[in-house]
């Protein structure tokens, strides 16, 4: 049932030009940065080769692309998730689900899977671009895989947060603005800790980028995975509860 809903949602996502324009713009920016990084690497190559344990192609070109995509999607994800539920509410299409023998969790999971599908397309493009390097040099595939996992988890967490916020309103733009605000706060929440060094570990732990860095270094830490899964689970659960409450009050 949730796959059915996901399929319908993906269709609706790709029928208007929004998804295509997002893919195009993001890909254009990535390509530009890719070329700039490649250029830098070629200039620095002679000096790097003399250093012991110097960063390789993966560190210099692929991982910056990954982290750039993370930043771009911080801006873009709200645009993708904003209409998930709010538009259903605005167009009064929710009764179609609510009067169907489909549990609310299927609706939420279906919508979530649809966004993951979109994220998958975006990551596939990123991977293809990175793998193009393999034609001329050798990549650290372990590090690429770890980076991919980390990025995917973070984007899934973005999607879950966006989905929940979309449940709260019937105005897609409001959902987009609030989602952006929340994601950005999660992004910069660790800025407060810099002066105090190790003392503010709670804020540091809360920061959504903090958990990315080890993935980009090729380190898969279960604590980081757990952090993302916790966020995803929490916001999906909140979405289900919010939609359930739809039945109870107004």
């Amino acid at each position: 049932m949730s796959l059915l809903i996901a399929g319908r949602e993906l269709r609706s996502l790709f029928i208007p030009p929004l998804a295509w324009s997002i893919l195009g713009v993001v890909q254009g920016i990535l390509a530009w940065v890719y070329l700039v990084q490649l250029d830098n690497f070629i200039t620095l190559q002679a000096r790097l080769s003399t250093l012991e344990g110097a960063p390789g192609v993966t560190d210099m070109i692929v991982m910056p692309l990954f982290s750039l995509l993370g930043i771009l999607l911080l801006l873009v994800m709200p645009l993708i998730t904003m209409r998930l539920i709010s538009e259903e509410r605005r167009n009064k299409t929710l009764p179609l689900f609510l009067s169907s023998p489909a549990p609310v969790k299927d609706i939420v999971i279906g919508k979530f899977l649809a966004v993951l599908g979109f994220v998958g397309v975006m990551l596939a493009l990123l991977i293809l671009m990175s793998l193009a390097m393999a034609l001329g040099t050798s990549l650290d595939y372990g590090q690429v895989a770890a980076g991919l996992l980390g990025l995917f988890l973070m984007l899934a967490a973005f999607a879950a947060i966006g989905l929940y916020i979309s449940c709260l309103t019937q105005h897609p733009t409001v959902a987009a603005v609030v989602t952006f605000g929340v994601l950005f706060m999660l992004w910069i929440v660790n800025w407060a800790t810099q002066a105090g060094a190790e003392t503010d570990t709670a804020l540091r732990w809360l920061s959504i980028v903090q958990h990315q860095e080890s993935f980009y270094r090729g380190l898969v830490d279960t604590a980081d995975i757990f952090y993302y899964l916790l966020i995803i689970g929490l916001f999906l659960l909140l979405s289900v509860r919010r939609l359930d409450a739809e039945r109870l009050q107004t």
Partner: protein
Amino acid sequence: MAESTAHKLVVADRLSRRYGRLQAVCDVSFTLDKGEVLGFLGPNGAGKSTTMQMLCGCLAPTEGGIRINGVDLLEDPLAAKRQIGFLPEQPPLYAELTVDEYLRYSARLRRVARSRLGAAVATVKERCGLTDSGRRLIGNLSKGYQQRVGIAQAIVHSPPVVILDEPTVGLDPIQIREIRDLIRTLGNDHGVILSTHILPEVQMTCNRVQIIHRGKLVFSDSIDNLNRQTQADSLLLALRNKPAVTELEAVDDVSEVETLPDGRFRIRFVPDRSPADRLVTLSVEHNWGLTELTPENRTLEQIFIMLTHADQSGEATT
């Protein structure tokens, strides 16, 4: 109670719904049998839509219970919802899908097996007159056709209970007639509940009617009894050679004669004892030159006033 309602398609038991401090529906009970078209009649804001939404599980009642085909909607909502097809006040359509895509999607949502999907969609399109519109985008259809798609969506899985909230709003007269015909045929093998604020619509399509006013059921009976309620207790009379009012008042069973500004008379009479034939005879005898004699049916508003007034006076005496 349990035994007598066991075979009913829908049993609503003392439903109440509050929105904050507003009591939208209060203590509404009714049942629906197979093969019945039940009309919910009421002015705007009477609680019709709220009741419909509660019946199909979109809204939880504050108090009371609902059984659909023997399944408790609140305890086992998924099983109960399989028995329902619902058309909300505003059809839940996706403008960017084609009619075929949308109906297939709705059918799958309503758990129509994949193997029967094509047949179910084809049947429902034929029933709703959408056979030629399958590949059109819903967003480009006219309001009437969108309404048909909405109805198609509600019956695509041929549920035992079909709930239609104001199905003819915004349609032109020909479309209204088609939709009414469709509803009547639906009544043959489904139980249908429909809501409307148009009195003739109920008289034309339903065989049982409930009138809801300010959240309360004020009338619940067969359509024949409603027709008796709406029956005239006055006649409009136009005569070329006008007699004196006293002459008309002298006729048997006439209780009151009123002269209207356009020269016609409104003749009120004792209920169920229309003096129409006597008036015709007198007109011929006295050469009054009868040009018009029309029974005046009560409007919905008058029935509401009558019913609610009767209700209040009934409460006052008990």
